[in-house]
């Protein structure tokens, strides 16, 4: 090879080295701006998508509100960005890390945003913050002030396929862990999945908590992380037995809720823990009729749970763009009862305001869920939860294939060092 080619070649190597530098030091960023021009303010609204497809996408719901709102408030424009639940936390986090703040988010809220002074309080941006359901106040509160504003709520119940139960010769609803195990084994013999156990990264923290509660456990005791408590270990030891007997879908640690709910709707799963949001999925699959399935309180170790996981998704209002007045106009508008109820009808979720709850109290489908809400158990509300939740989502599923005690103690250590 002659000198000329050689130098060109080493240039290639240099280029490769430069590419290595560029790739290793890679950072992500995305565009996004909110401009104020000609007296018009643009609010950036980022919402989680609760829909199961284009037909009931949450963007449609929000665009409906926005259209009506913009008509009433010509100087305020609202752009809607909707993000699938699987990516919601991460994308919002990335926006914040990159200092591209949204004005309003609806989905998960974390108290560390409040701690860092990024948020307006509920009183700053709502005319009537007292109308928000008091049961969820603690979760949105950071050092005495409420920042997370519940927008929609739900509680969990155990769904089961009555058709499969009849085929397997099971008469009674599952109430205890032993029932779950026996029934799942019988359904497995039909060639179906006995119990659907979604411990994949999407929502492993919810499924896990439902089992922890079954033996009196949970993520925290008295505000301290006790993930490795004997009760939690016993719950995961039970699950491990269930998994190794083949009574669940294979490899629960890699399976997400969305996929498994669809399979339940297709009639191939015997039992699964679900929220009212599972109902429209069942209906749209057109496989199970309303009499083919039912839902009962979550099964515990000794009997059905008297408390359940109550989840609320929150609205958070970010300070950074300084749009307090406009955000207040928008949130007052969006929190009207008719929009609360429309959201709940669309996704079979529950309202998050006292006035909307009153309007729903007579509804036969919703009232059992509503009465369960006030004494529901919620996720930890401290600032380390965002970090702990990520770790739980990623790794807790390995507890049902590995050693439960080891996985849970690693998580507890990680949680302690994060708090």
């Amino acid at each position, binding site marked *: 090879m002659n000198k000329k080619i050689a130098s060109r070649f080493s240039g290639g190597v240099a280029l*490769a080295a430069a590419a290595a530098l560029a790739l290793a030091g890679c950072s992500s960023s995305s565009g996004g701006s909110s401009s104020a021009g000609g007296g018009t303010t643009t609010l950036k609204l980022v919402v989680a998508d609760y829909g199961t497809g284009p037909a009931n996408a949450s963007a449609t719901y929000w665009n409906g509100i926005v259209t009506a709102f913009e008509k009433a408030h010509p100087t305020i424009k609202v752009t809607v960005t909707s993000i699938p639940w699987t990516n919601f936390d991460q994308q919002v*986090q990335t926006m914040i890390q990159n200092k591209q703040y949204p004005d309003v988010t609806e989905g998960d809220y974390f108290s560390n945003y409040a701690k860092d002074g990024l948020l307006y309080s509920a009183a700053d941006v709502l005319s009537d913050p007292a109308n928000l359901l008091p049961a969820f106040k603690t979760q949105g509160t950071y050092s005495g002030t409420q920042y997370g504003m519940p927008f929609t709520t739900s509680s969990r119940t155990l769904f089961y396929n009555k058709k499969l139960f009849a085929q397997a010769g099971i008469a009674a609803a599952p109430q205890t862990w032993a029932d779950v195990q026996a029934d799942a084994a019988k359904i497995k013999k039909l060639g179906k999945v006995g119990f659907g156990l979604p411990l994949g990264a999407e929502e492993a923290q919810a499924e896990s908590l439902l089992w922890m509660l079954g033996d009196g456990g949970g993520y925290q005791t008295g505000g301290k992380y006790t993930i490795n408590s004997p009760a939690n270990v016993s719950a995961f030891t039970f699950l491990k037995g269930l998994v190794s007997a083949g009574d669940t879908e294979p490899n629960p640690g890699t399976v997400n809720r969305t996929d498994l709910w669809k399979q339940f709707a297709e009639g191939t799963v015997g039992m699964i823990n679900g929220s009212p949001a599972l109902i429209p999925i069942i209906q749209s699959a057109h496989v199970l009729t309303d009499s083919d399935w039912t839902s009962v309180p979550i099964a515990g170790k000794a009997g059905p749970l008297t408390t359940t996981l109550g989840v609320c998704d929150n609205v958070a209002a970010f300070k950074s763009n300084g749009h307090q007045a406009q955000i207040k106009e928008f949130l007052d508008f969006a929190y009207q009862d008719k929009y609360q109820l429309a959201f709940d009808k669309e996704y079979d979720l529950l309202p998050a305001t006292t006035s909307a709850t009153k309007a729903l109290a007579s509804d036969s489908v919703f009232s059992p869920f509503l009465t369960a809400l006030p004494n529901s158990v919620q996720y930890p509300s401290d600032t380390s939860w965002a970090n702990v939740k*990520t770790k739980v989502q990623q*790794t807790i599923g390995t507890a049902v294939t590995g050693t439960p005690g080891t996985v849970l103690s690693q998580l507890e250590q990680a949680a302690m060092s994060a708090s």
Partner: protein
Amino acid sequence: MSALRRLSPLLWLGPAVALIGVAVLWPVVVMVQSSFQAIGGEGFVAGYNGTANFRHLFDEPDFVSVLQRTLLWVVVVVVVTMLISLALAQLFHQRFPGRTVTRWALIIPWAASVMMTALIFRWALDPNVGVINVILHHLGVVKQLGSGQADWLGNPTSALAWMMAVAVFVSLPFTTYAILSGLQGIPDDVYEAAAIDGATSWKAYLAVTMPLLRPAILVATLINVINVFNSFPIIWEMTRGGPGYDTATSTIFMVDLKQGDVGESAAMSVINFLLVIVIVVVYLATTRWKEQVDR
């Protein structure tokens, strides 16, 4: 005037140097700086953190296994890619009807977005309805759909094997073209001379083609190593590194850490960066690339 004249090369070099400085060197500086700062999940710098980020990282129970897996991932994907590409390039170097079309077709895995390719494979491997599983079921390989056996991506070993196959698939076009261009640069007369000396075609391949291909192989391997090491979309789309971190490479691990602790994530990036440099330097040293290119 002559002083100005001496400066004129700067005019031509300037933009490129500035680009490398801003797009390559500056991020590296920020990365190293971040790895020594306390930065939480919201991206706020809470001051100097000493070596705590690194200590945290080394204490992660999955750290060592993630690194081992990363090395395995790079070695297997690059070696298999190179072997298949050598054969493919040889094939495309022959004259046969339809050669132009097939050469064009080879671009497809390269032109398609890696993320889309990974998604398509994930769907095709769905344990209940994935097309690969349905075919394997008809062939009798997969006994029952929806079973543990059909859940290729749920088991860390088979998931890693499938993802490696996808990584090889998307690396083939570039590698094959690099080797093909090397093959086309070899003059015919050396083969004539080899034939006169009585070399069989296999002997000619080993004694003539391979040595002359070395520069092309060298560059292709190097770029592949860097690419595969930092490969992100395939694993992210197919398993997200799960179950747990059992299929995560260091890049996936870094992204996952970033959600909760940007500082620790930056520490992982620094380790990643050093590893790439070490691997490249060791590779260049063992292949004595200077002799290759200066000859």
